[in-house]
């Protein structure tokens, strides 16, 4: 749930038996200035995952940053499990938690993140999330 350039946006994953009924219940929103899309989520293949990574990016705001950053993470099979963005003045900041398949060379991903940061003229990094196991 976030604001994208002033537009409210939200994605929910829910376990619903009757999708057709849900669509029907939501149909009245077609008359509102809202776009609502209900689609079935395919059963995901179970992939062994490596430790979670933190992706951060900050710099001057411009269109396309999220698209290029998420495309790069997806190229390596990254699954973004959490993301937030902030814009204040000209400073844009993105933070995300990403899980990659266990056999991913995350140092290679980090190198590509450095390259992307240079291309976008921003600062970006990928590093392991620090966890305390108690």
């Amino acid at each position, binding site marked *: 749930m976030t604001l994208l350039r002033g537009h409210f946006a939200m994605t929910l994953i829910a376990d619903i038996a009757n999708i057709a009924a849900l669509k029907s219940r939501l149909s009245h929103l077609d008359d509102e200035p809202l776009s609502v899309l209900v689609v079935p989520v395919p059963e995901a293949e179970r992939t062994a995952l490596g430790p979670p990574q*933190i992706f*951060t990016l*900050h*710099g001057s705001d411009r269109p396309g940053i999220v698209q290029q950053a998420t495309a790069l993470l997806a190229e390596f099979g990254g699954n973004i499990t959490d*993301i937030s963005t*902030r814009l204040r003045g000209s*400073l844009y*900041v993105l*933070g995300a*938690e990403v899980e990659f398949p266990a056999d991913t060379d995350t140092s290679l991903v980090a190198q590509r993140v450095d390259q992307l940061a240079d291309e976008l003229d921003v600062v970006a990094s990928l590093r392991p999330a620090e966890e305390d196991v108690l």
Partner: protein
Amino acid sequence: MDLSFELPQGRVRPVLTAPAKLLSEPCPEVSPTDPATIGLAADLVATMLVSPGCVGLAANQIGERARVFCLDVTEHPKTKTQHGRFVLINPSIVTATRKTQSREGCMSVPDFTGDVRRASRLVVTGYLPGEHEPITITTDAFEARAIQHEVDHLDGLLFLDRTSGAHALHPRKTYL
């Protein structure tokens, strides 16, 4: 350890804010005895002292590419060990242990604060202004955090590069 030093009257300088390029570039080492370095040290202290709530400032925050920062956490409530007001030149972290998470802000990122994990026990070396021999500072708690924050600046890193998760960044609140 006495880290007090005599500095000339410094000049208050404007503080750069992100996304200024200089804040993301590593700073080179400089001579601790160069008069220009000592002048920079004085400017850092003068700028820190007129900035409300400021406990530390790195050279690139005032537009200088030099591995120098000033610090004074004396009045901060989270401070345990402290070394008063000092300037450290060419700092290098020797050991950093016992990480804890805390929320920190920065004059160069005035609109946000962030949750950052940093070592709470720290050993750092560097030079005092005008000195030829390096010193070693052993500290903890808030002074340790503040030193790591400043050394990060000199390495071209902001706390934005250290936040601990997707929701570790917060709008900065102003209390009247």
